[in-house]
């Protein structure tokens, strides 16, 4: 706890420095369309924070993106386990996930807009963005499971559920944790980008779209800060959760 406090204290001058740079840039450029000062941004953020629409948009985006993220987390782990166990699954799934990894988010978004109702867009986009990350990390984790421990468990005729719990899950946890903490940031960014492209009503993306249309840079900056803070909180919540699991 003490260490965290001292780290925060050490980090404060760095934040202050960048705020000064930001304030200086806003002062020099003198254009509220290109850049607004931190004071204006935070004032706007507090204004927005006082409205129900702000929290409603955050809740909607957060709920959908988290759903896509969690679905990808589950599907990625299950698919990787199937691929590790069955050669045929590996032959079928591996190329598909590789393609998924290479296709640009914009293509998926346009495709999804034609196929689904736009309210499900960010769920789908978060899902396809995170799935390859979780899949490849989990596969790597399974491959790194100690063959000696598995051989030991086989010799002692240890039941499968114990092997999964004591060997596989313990080996996989750091890999899945790493994928989840990386993936949540990607889910968040891609999900909001999809909402923006699809102009999904009542979401963060739609608010960014409105800010762009009206050249309202203060709103754009305020929403961006909200996105960064939420991404940071989600990533740290996951770190905390997996920290407990790995312990």
């Amino acid at each position: 706890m003490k260490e965290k406090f001292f780290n925060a204290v050490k980090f404060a001058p760095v934040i202050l420095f960048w705020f000064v740079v930001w304030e200086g840039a806003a002062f020099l450029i003198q254009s509220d369309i290109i850049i607004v000062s931190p004071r204006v941004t935070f004032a706007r953020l507090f204004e927005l924070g006082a409205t129900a629409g702000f929290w409603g948009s955050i809740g909607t985006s957060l709920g959908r993106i988290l759903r896509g993220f969690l679905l990808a987390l589950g599907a990625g782990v299950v698919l990787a386990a199937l691929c590790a166990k069955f050669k045929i699954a590996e032959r079928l799934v591996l190329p598909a996930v590789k393609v998924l990894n290479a296709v640009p988010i914009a293509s998926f978004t346009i495709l999804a807009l034609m196929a689904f109702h736009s309210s499900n867009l960010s769920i789908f986009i978060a899902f396809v963005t995170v799935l390859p990350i979780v899949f490849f990390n989990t596969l790597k984790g399974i491959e790194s499971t100690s063959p000696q421990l598995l051989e030991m468990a086989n010799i002692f005729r240890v039941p499968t559920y114990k092997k999964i719990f004591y060997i596989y899950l313990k080996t996989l946890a750091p890999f899945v944790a790493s994928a989840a903490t990386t993936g949540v940031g990607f889910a968040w960014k891609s999900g909001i980008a999809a909402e923006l492209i699809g102009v999904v009503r009542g979401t963060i993306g739609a608010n960014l779209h409105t800010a762009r249309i009206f050249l309202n840079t203060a709103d754009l900056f305020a929403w961006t800060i909200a996105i960064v803070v939420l991404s940071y909180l989600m990533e740290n919540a996951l770190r905390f959760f997996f920290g407990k699991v790995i312990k």
Partner: protein
Amino acid sequence: MIRLKNICKSFGEQSVLRDISMEFAEGITCIMGPSGVGKTTLINIAAGIIAPDCGEIIGLHGKKVSMIFQEDRLLEWETALTNVLFVNNNRPRAIELLTQAGLADSLHKKAADLSGGMKRRVCLCRALIAQHDLLILDEPFKGLDAEIKPSIMQMVKDHANGITICITHDPSEAEFLGGRVISFAS
């Protein structure tokens, strides 16, 4: 009784076992010999872990095997007690064995935090608690302190049942355990 008949095994170009035949009857059999002559390969074949290139193993089918491996192969992130319970859920028996092995104060310590000798004792408890017809011990007393070693050897003698095969470099260990001694030469 387990019979190994005309066993041979090579790893790449290196021939480790050539036309080996031997029998393991009920009781303790100690295998002695210098490092690198293929003792561990032989018992891994006897345990069914690795397949021989030629020859056959008679009498292994359906037998329950328990083993102390050359390496500890412990779940380093789990406690000494959990490592023993991993192979058999009999908690009172696990605690009894660990206590006998002088680990009563270390039941809840993670394997990673135990010394080499303590880990070896956890391995022994794990091997003894598992139901077995064939008990294979690959240098079970490696790294044990001189004070604790006699009681651990006695523990093996008391608890080993069925067919027990023990690899050792130390003639005094073989003598203590009694039974048959097979000397392996290169």
